[in-house]
Every structure is written in C-alpha cells, then in structure tokens.
C-alpha cells in the first residue's frame, strides 16, 4: 500500500500544501489539514484569514492555486465535471448568508437538491421536506413563504434543512451563528449537535464564535491571516481538542479566544 493511500484511509478529507492566491494577494499558504470520518472540527480565526475560502476550496467552488484536496481518496483536482458533481452531492453546505434562492419558496428551496438527485416522486419529496423542516424546528406554515419573509435565524435553519435534505456525508457550516442573537445562536449550536447525533456526518464548522467552537467541535483549528505571518511561520496556529486551546502559550491564540485587541489597537494607532 502506498503512503498516499494509507493517509487517505485515515482521513475522509485531506488538504495538502494548499495555497490560494487572488491576484497578488495570498490568502492561504501551505495548508495541511486532515479530517477523519465522523469528526466535527471548528475552524476559527479572525475575519479575512481565509476560513470561508478554505471551506469553499474543499468542494472546489474555488480552485486552489497550488496543492490538492483529497476527498474519500480522490484528488478532486483530477476529477472531471461529472465526477465532481457526483462528489459534491455527498456534501451539504450551510452558507453564511443562507444563500436561499430568493425566487423560490422555502419548500422549493429544500426540495431543490432532491430534484437535482433525480427524485421525481412528489409524495417522496413532500415527505422529505416536511421531515427536514421539522428537524430544524420550523413550522409547516413557513414552507410557502419566500426567503425575504423570514428572519435571519429562520433563514439559517432553512439553509440547514436544505443542506440536510439528501442526508449528506459531510456538512460544511460557514459561520452558522454570525449575526444571530445569543438564544438563536444556541439553537443553531444545538441543531448542529443534534444533526451529528441523528445522522453519522463529518462536519466542518467555520466560526469566530468561541462558544460555538467549544460546544460543537471535537477539534479546533485556528488559522491566522497570511499577511500577518513572519517568514517561515505556519498559518495554522493551533490544531487540537477544545480543552487544549486554553493551555496554549501562543499569544495570538490567547488574544483571539479571549477577545483582546490590545496589540492590534497599538498597531492601528487608535489607543490614544
């Protein structure tokens, strides 16, 4: 067995030496990360450090400049469009803004992935949609509403219901609690945990909410903005279990988890 396949046996998702540049700007550089089947990892880091870019690269919504993404042993960079589509159907993606199709009703939004999977039986589609909407704690009355008629929390929950529609093997959450009040944030956290207990899924949660990270994750990975790194430094500052992050000696990690902006305010010269 080659070294490559041995690594893939252990990991469902593996990023190798991943580098992403947009024009002259480097967002991610030399990222190595592996996610085991059934694991829930939280990727934390300040705004603009490349968390969302990393998540979108996993399902190849963004092509890496260098490096590879392996999913279930396949190098997604070497798959054709049809194969990539098949692999993408194994993922559910909860977008930061929910990304619901605003020309469709809630029902049509949740039914969309089912129709993409060639499910044509209307009764089956209706049954699945009703099941998913109840799983995220929303009443049936929202099904005929348009996304614009829903609150932020409801939209996020509909986005989660849509991501769950096809019972994906992997769910990618992009800042699921951003912009929500503390109660609704906790509802979303509980839904993430409940989803994991109901369906055997692997989850990657992008967040800068430490409460969410600690509550839902088996493992926390902290990214740091590439532009602020010194030469030769790794962009991943921390990779370990949630209880170990409080013991870390790296000041940049402790400042982030405690929400201390002291050094940054000095750099910005607005502390006077």
């Amino acid at each position, binding site marked *: 067995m080659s070294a490559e396949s041995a690594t893939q046996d252990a990991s469902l998702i593996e990023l190798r030496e991943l580098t992403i540049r947009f024009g*002259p700007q480097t967002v991610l550089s030399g990222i190595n990360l592996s996610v085991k089947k059934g694991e829930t990892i939280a990727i934390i880091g300040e705004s603009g450090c490349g968390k969302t870019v990393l998540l979108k690269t996993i399902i190849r919504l963004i092509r890496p400049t260098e490096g590879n993404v392996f999913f279930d042993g396949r190098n997604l960079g070497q798959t054709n469009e049809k194969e990539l589509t098949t692999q993408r159907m194994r993922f559910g993606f909860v*977008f930061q803004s929910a990304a619901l*199709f605003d020309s469709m009703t809630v029902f049509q939004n949740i039914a969309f992935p089912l129709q993409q999977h060639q499910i044509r039986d209307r009764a089956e589609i209706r049954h699945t949609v009703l099941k998913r909407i109840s799983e995220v704690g929303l009443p049936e009355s929202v099904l005929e509403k348009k996304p614009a008629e829903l609150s932020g929390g409801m939209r996020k929950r509909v986005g989660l219901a849509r991501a769950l529609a096809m019972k994906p093997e992997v769910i990618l959450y992009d800042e699921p609690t951003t912009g929500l009040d503390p109660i609704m944030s906790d509802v979303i956290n509980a839904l993430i945990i409940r989803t994991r207990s109901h369906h055997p899924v692997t989850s990657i949660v992008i967040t800068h909410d430490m409460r969410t990270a600690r509550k839902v994750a088996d493992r926390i990975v902290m990214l740091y903005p590439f532009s602020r790194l010194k030469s030769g430094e790794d962009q991943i500052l921390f990779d370990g279990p949630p209880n170990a992050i409080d013991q870390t000696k790296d000041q940049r990690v402790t400042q982030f988890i405690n929400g201390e902006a002291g050094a940054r305010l000095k750099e910005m010269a607005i502390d006077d």
Partner: protein
Amino acid sequence: MEIAEQTAEKKRHLVGPMRWFTDSGAVVIDWVTAVGGVSFFTMRTISWLVSRLPQKDTLLPNFYQVGVRSLPVVALTGTFIGMVLAVQSYAQFAHIGLQTRLGGVINMSLVTELGPVLAGTMLAGRVGSAMAAELGTMRVTEQIDALSSMGANPIHYLVVPRLLACLCLIPALTVVANFMGVIGSAFYSIFILDIDAFYYWHNSRSIVGLYDLFSGIFKSLFFGFAIAILGCYRGFHCDPGAEGVGRAATAAFVHAFVVIIVLDLFLGIFLIGLHKAIWPAGGQLF
C-alpha cells in the same frame, strides 16, 4: 514576499512614460482576458445547450420574461419609430415630388435595420441588464455557489434557459417591431400627411422583398445571442456589493448595444454580398 506582490510593488515606483506603458499594457491584458473569458463562457454555454436541454420549469419563466414582458415596449417604440421616420423623411421626398415612395423607403429601413436593432436594443436594456443584475445578485449572495454545491451546473441551470429564451423570441419581437413600425408609418403617412394609400402600399410592395425581411430576422438571432451571453457573463463575473451589481447591469447593456451595432454593420455587409451572389441581376426572393 511573493513574486506577484513584488511586481505590484515595482509598478508603484514607476513614473512617466514607463508608468503609461505599463498602464496601457494592463488595459490590453484586461481586454484580452475579458474577450477570452466571454469566449470560454460562450463555449461552455453551447456545450451545455447541445448536451442537455433545461427543464420546462426553468425555461417558461424566462420565455415569459423575455417575450411577453418585452412585447408592449417593443410594440410601442416600433410604432413611434415608424411615425418618426415618416415625419422626418416626408419633407425631403415631397420636395422632389416622390412622397408616394415614402412607404417603400421607410418600410425597407424598418425591416432590414430599425426593427431588429430596435428589438435588440430594447431587449438589451430591459432583459440583458436585468439578467446581469439578477445573476450578479445571485453571485454576491452566494446563490450561484449554492447551486454548484448541490450538484447543479449554474451554466446549465441559469444561462442556457436565458439564451434559449432570447434566441427563440427575438425573431418574434423583431417581427412585432417591424409590423408596428409599418403600421405607425402608414398611419402617419396616409392619415396625417395625406399620401395616397394605394401608391404608398404599391411602392412598399415593389421595394421591400422577402429577403429584406429575412435579413432583419437573421440579424436579430445574433443580437439575441449577444444580449444573453453578455448579460449572463457580466452577472457571473460581478464585483461584490451593490455597486458591483449596478456596474454589471450597466456594462451588460453598454457592451450588448455596442456589439449589436458592430454586428449590424458586418452582418449587413455579409447579407448584401450574399444577395448579390444569389441574384447578380438584382432579383428578389419573391
């Protein structure tokens, strides 16, 4: 420091002619990149168009938007263009006593040039910019990413139905613009300018042939193609934010309008050449 960052840093220190030279080079590179981008986008759209037709529920709303919703504005502008042509041409033709020839000249202009260009311009303004704004909003609100993440191809799902709607319905809109223009000019010439109806229609019939009507409709297909491709391309490559969406909508119209005018010239030359090749003695299709 990365190579790209070093290049950007060096550029900042350039002055005078060198700065002008690098800026001009950047404009050329941007232009070539954009042409390459549109070409690649067109090829992907055509490959999806021939490989799998979209479902009825994605086609019908686009057909309604492009055809039914554009009909009143195309009909209204067609009517008034016909009347305006009658107003503007009458004095010159009356001066040399050829006012009864007005019908032939106006209707010839309408079916070969103004009908298709008017339908194309109205479609570019009403539909092309709306496509760019709608798809641009979908891009900035991650709806296009959401489509991809669920295994739907955004080109197949969003672009192909819009292209088909424009391709199928622009000939019909051109016919409406032609018809309403002919009615408008006839109404003004016969009832307001008091030109003899028999000679007006007789001269129209003897000057305007079926090939002229075909020329206009043939050109409109190219206009429809350009409007849909440019509108969708601008939407797909929209910059973030409200300003980006606004700029995409404006660019979609401006680029489509320029392309319509340029295509009109070259297609006009081609069609006249084709007519001469088929009928060297100046015959007609009927």
